[in-house]
């Protein structure tokens, strides 16, 4: 039981990373991307191929996984930037499918549908982080979640975050305010994909094998659900979203009801969450985080400017 709980928490951590990445793309910038699974897959396969075929250390594959996923993000971002929401959704969905199809068919590199087995267990200072014993891996994954949480928070708590939100609110107005919307959109894709790629890498180190059918559209929708449920544009909220969705998905098994609750249950719940949230609470459970600038810059006593100094 405790083992199962730990397992859920590890997956929650992996999904929290995916959700953090998706949040940059969808939550902040308002771009409906549907290829989280694709970036995730690129990360996993990078680690699997490099560790198994080339004997790389697990740790070095993580940043590379992120970078490769980010490049894929730029690749999808660049051509599709000019597209409006719905087109972008389809194009990214198609892109995710292309990634999966390529993985399925590029036998010499990915071993096709069989996937890659025998990824070595990660070691640190000579100690093996044995995924079967969970605690170690749980710590590792959540360290990543915490680090990315702070990094992304910092990134978005600046003019960059404001620019992304402006693009989400009104792209034309943002453009006319001197924001290079194209650049920021590609950037958002790259950052989001980077995080997802790292998550993929961690996932490979945990399951020790990768197969293409792990990275289906279903994963992308689940990640999207987490962001929508928690609250778009709020980092902590989407981590919460990841936790809730994971618990909801595994709840039959947690209660030992897996034999009575049909396997479709969780997907139906995701679908319901999306529809109901959109109708009744589109901002998510927590909603967008309002920054208190008066407090943030710590400057309530500022002198009132003389009008002539405005210029």
């Amino acid at each position, binding site marked *: 039981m405790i083992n199962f709980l730990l397992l859920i928490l590890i997956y929650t951590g992996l999904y929290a990373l995916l959700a953090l990445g998706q949040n940059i793309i969808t939550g902040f910038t308002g771009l409906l991307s549907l290829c989280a699974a694709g970036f995730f897959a690129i990360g996993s396969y990078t680690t699997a191929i490099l560790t198994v075929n080339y004997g790389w250390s697990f740790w070095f594959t993580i940043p590379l996984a992120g970078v490769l996923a980010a490049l894929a993000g730029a690749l999808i971002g660049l051509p599709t930037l000019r597209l409006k929401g719905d087109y972008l959704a389809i194009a990214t969905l198609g892109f995710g499918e292309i990634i999966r199809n390529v993985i399925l068919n590029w036998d010499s590199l990915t071993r096709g549908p069989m996937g890659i087995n025998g990824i070595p267990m990660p070691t640190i200072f000579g100690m093996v982080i044995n995924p079967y014993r969970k605690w170690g891996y749980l710590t590792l994954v959540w360290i990543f979640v915490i680090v990315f949480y702070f990094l992304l928070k910092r990134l978005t708590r600046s003019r960059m975050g*404001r620019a992304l939100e402006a693009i989400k*609110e009104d792209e034309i107005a*943002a*453009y006319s*305010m001197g924001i290079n919307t194209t*650049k*920021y959109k590609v*950037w958002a894709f790259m950052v989001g994909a980077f995080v997802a790629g790292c998550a993929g890498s961690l996932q490979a180190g945990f399951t020790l094998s990768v197969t293409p059918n792990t990275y289906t559209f279903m994963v992308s929708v689940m990640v999207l659900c987490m962001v929508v449920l928690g609250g778009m544009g709020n980092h902590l909220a989407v981590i919460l979203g990841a936790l809730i969705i994971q618990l909801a998905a595994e709840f039959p098994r947690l209660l030992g009801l897996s034999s009575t609750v049909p396997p479709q249950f969780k997907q139906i719940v995701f679908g319901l969450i999306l529809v109901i949230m959109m109708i009744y609470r589109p901002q998510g459970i927590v909603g967008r985080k309002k920054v208190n600038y008066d407090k943030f810059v710590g400057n309530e006593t500022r002198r009132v400017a003389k009008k002539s100094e405005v*210029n």
Partner: protein
Amino acid sequence: MSLLYTKQLTRAYGGVIAVSDVDFSVEKNSISGLIGPNGAGKTTLFNNVTGMDIPTSGSVHFNDKDITGVPAFKISRLGIARTFQNIRLFKEMSVLENVMIGRHFKSGRSMISGRTVNALTSYMKMKSEEKDVYDKAREWLDFFGLDEARNEAAKNLPYGNQRELEIARAMATEPELLFLDEPAAGMNPQETDHLMSTIRRIRDLGVTVLLIEHDMKLVMNICEHITVLNYGKKIAEGNPSEIQKNPLVIEAYLGKED
């Protein structure tokens, strides 16, 4: 020397020629008006000058530099800011944030990756950058009398204030030339009076103002120079009294209105 001028500017949408061969200019430090009946091509002219749209032919010059086809985000950096006919605020964001976005390109270095590194590494630097943006934004809010409402979501402001907030946001880019597309639309007489004094104060800061407006009282009151478009063509220009007397204008526009 004109601050901005166009040469035979034309924009056709398929068969519709929205702007046709227009030679148009704005004098430095003036308040100018662009008028004409609905569908005359005024907004299209704005869009083509501000980079929101690309002219079919002709050219646009600002400070004697050819800016034809330069994208909007660069044009705003060159010193032309604008508002929109249908208010385009960042609705969910606060009043303050709206104006802070106006400061976007005035703050920080320009390389996005450099800035990313910056945002990630130096908290103090980021904070001081933010403080500058914040201070300037509040100065502009003061100027427009919107400072009290700074933490409200923009969408919750009364209509007249939303229009002024849009101008505040544009002014935060510190433009040389400010374009206003029907700033008084939907305003009541008091709000319009307030707007007129605001526009004069903006001009007094040394900013050139060009506005599109259907409210003739406002136009005749504050504009020193007026250009009239009809069916995409320039049919007249001059000072308010000349325009009011011009038979072509009366026929095309005032005649119909009264």
